[in-house]
């Protein structure tokens, strides 16, 4: 049964991804402006001939549907095309940016769930206490703290006043000559501030979801049954309430997987972090269609499969769910 379900879901994925790609492509090309215009406008030295050459180079002299089909044909060979900006293959650019983003997003994700879930359980188990109120208040503050402000303060403190942390960038200037361990240490050192900023507050949402879901579970009949059996608070909470309350979190994790490769533009820009957020942002503002299509499409694939994985995990973990 599960196998058939998985196959069916995988088959649906194909038209879904096609639809996403048509939409993305359409929206991009319907937006005013073009890469040619952004490179040539208001330049008194640009001749009409050069503009034509550029249009041909970018394949923009062809009708829209042909451009899309050409893109699709290349995609069938796992070729995302070349960036308009520097003519490098899109896949190379993504592979350059992906490690930096994963390095930042994976720990952030782990922090978000690793801190958020215990905090949520704690708040649910001790409703109305001072600690719970304090935690709730703090999680609201953390969630609403603007990332750019926090980043600037930390850069000022750690980088300028104390002078111990790198302010921005992925590695030190001289790090090309370092050994592999020193290189790793150097990158880790550069990771400190961006990681603090991007995970600050990320747990807040998770802890709120978790708290609600535990509170809801605690009102169920089987919890009363558990108490009636004579179990204490701790056993009821950990053995009976928690596993059930955790189920909805699977959806959250599934969605977060799609977000893993989409870096945060703000954090990456402030810290000059060479990740996917900046890649996509710069491609969007520079009309670099191939890069933008590539990033959007890879994001779509991950989101679709993240959701699929979440649904399958549900089936495996919750005996009530059958496909």
């Amino acid at each position: 049964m599960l196998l058939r379900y998985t196959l069916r879901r995988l088959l649906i994925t194909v038209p879904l991804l096609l639809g996403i790609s048509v939409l993305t492509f359409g929206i991009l090309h319907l937006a005013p402006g073009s890469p040619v215009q952004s490179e040539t406008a208001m330049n008194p030295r640009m001749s009409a001939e050069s503009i034509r050459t550029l249009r041909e180079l970018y394949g923009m002299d062809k009708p829209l549907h042909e451009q899309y089909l050409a893109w699709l044909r290349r995609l069938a060979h796992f070729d995302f095309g070349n960036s308009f900006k520097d003519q490098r293959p899109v896949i190379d650019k993504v592979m350059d940016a992906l490690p930096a983003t994963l390095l930042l997003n994976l720990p952030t994700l782990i922090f978000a769930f690793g801190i958020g879930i215990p905090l949520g359980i704690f708040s649910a188990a001790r409703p109305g206490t001072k600690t719970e109120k304090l935690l709730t208040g703090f999680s609201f503050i953390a969630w609403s703290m603007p990332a750019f402000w926090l980043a600037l303060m930390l850069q000022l403190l750690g980088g300028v006043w104390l002078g111990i942390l790198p302010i921005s960038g992925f590695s030190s200037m001289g790090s090309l000559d370092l050994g592999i361990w020193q290189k790793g240490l150097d990158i880790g050192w550069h990771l400190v501030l961006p990681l603090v900023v991007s995970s600050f507050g990320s747990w807040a949402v998770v802890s709120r979801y978790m708290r609600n879901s535990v509170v809801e579970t605690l009102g169920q009949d089987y919890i009363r049954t558990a108490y009636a059996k004579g179990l204490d608070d701790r056993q009821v909470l950990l053995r009976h309430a928690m596993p059930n309350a955790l189920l909805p979190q699977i959806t959250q994790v599934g969605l977060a997987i799609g977000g893993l490769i989409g870096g945060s533009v703000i954090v990456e820009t402030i810290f000059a972090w060479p990740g996917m957020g900046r890649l996509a942002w710069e491609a969007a503002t520079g009309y670099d269609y191939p890069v933008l299509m590539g990033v959007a499409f890879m994001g779509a694939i991950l989101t679709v499969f993240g959701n699929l994985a979440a649904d399958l995990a549900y089936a495996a973990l919750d005996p009530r769910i059958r496909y």
Partner: protein
Amino acid sequence: MRSFRIGALLGALALLGACQRHKYDFDHIVDKDTIAEGGTLVMAENADASKLNPVVIGDATSRDVCDLIFNGLVRPDRRRVDYEGDLASSWEFKDQGKTVVFHLRKGIRWHDGVAFSSKDVEFTWRLIMDPKTATAAKSDFDMVQSIDTPDDLTVRVHYKKPYAPALNAWIIGIVPKHLLEHENDINKSSFNRNPIGTGPYKFIKWQDKQFIQLEANPDYYEGKPHIQRYVMKIIPDESTTLMELKAGSVDLAGLSPDQFSRQTDGADFKRVAAKYHFPGMRNYAYMGFNLKHKPFDDPKIRWALSYAVDRKALIDGVLLGYGKPISGPYVPVMKSYNPEVTPVPCDLTRSAQLLDQAGWKMGPAGVRQKDGKDLAFRLLIPQGDFGKRIVLILQQQFAKVGVKANIETYEWSLFLSNYVNKRDFDALTMMWQFDLDPDQYAIWHSSQTGPEEQNFIGYNNPEVDRLMEQGRTTIDPKKRIALYRRFHAIIAKDQPYLFLFAPDSLSGVSRKFQGMTFTDVGYRRFWYKDWYIPASLQK
């Protein structure tokens, strides 16, 4: 116990920080006057480069890096007002300006050791003219009929007719024939990411979105630069850049007026860096009238608006005072700027008089009217804080004389395609950016008013047309300057634009550099020839 440990940790951090902070004492550099080789200059740029090839179209960052890797035949001099020889040691105009003969320097080698020759120059020209090459330089060479190379060190360029801006085109970096002649698509060539040039620095490494690293060329024809490494670090955010400068991890960066006036006076900045303020060379801001629209076809109305503008208040408001008012289409440090023409003063009485004379009488709502119509117009700007601040101040200043400006803001490409190119505006505010040559044919000549052309305001003055044409064919530099100064005076009289201001150039530089040479327009030109880092300060 616990609080003690945290206290100890903070103490250790502070101590570490203190050590770091006082690593260098810039006030007492013992070996200040001893020229030393080595060290690194880290320059901050806000965007990554695209192609490190001077021939194919690239962005501003690419051009900055290419300037260090490649040489042109000529280059702007230290003050950026005249040309001097670069790969060419001298040149002469022949046949009444129809031919330019360049004499190349002896013994110049490409970074890979191959000898540079006149064949490379001819090849670069052919590459630019190749229809398959995507380049912005083609129009610079439109006038070239042919090029021949009688020997390895002589290049003869034949023009279709005498062409005075000829030298300007040859600032472009020359690329190596031996590496590129068999390239079938220069736009996608791997050379663009691994450039080989003749310049003071050699390309070493380019890490996407992080940095570009160059190293001093030991065989550079003007001598090896003292500073061994040049790193261009890409930092998109300007606050981050300033903090890197304060922390000493960036050595050279541009500053915004706000940073210059408010965030760089503290000890944390002065400890490591110095800030400099020089007149801008590159651009000016203006408000252009659509001369085909009423009432701006009437010079009186244009003058009335010009008198209504308080340029000093505008510069204070937009640039915190770091800019110069201008009187015409050049920036004041350029030779072609006519010093006898003064910027239009703010004179509200004169402005009101002119409007009254034209029949626009003050209406009940504080807006002037004529035949029951308000004196209101659509003032368009492309999206962005800078332009927005300019037009908001202009709007207030116009309101004082009873003129209503309705501001419309559009995204850049929409602004161009739907409004500028369709001439759908009464007035617009933008900036012009230019290079050394005073030629502005494309902006003011009456033949340049087609849909995507630059004379979008529809300016048409036969005398200016003639001056623009003469300017292109007059070879004698003195006569040529006189023509452009005359053009400046005529434009100032016509007021087809309100010429507003030229922003100053503001920057911060690490105090570790010695040997800096200053002119009235800056200090960065040819830094690689003079600057050095005392040995005690090299990391």
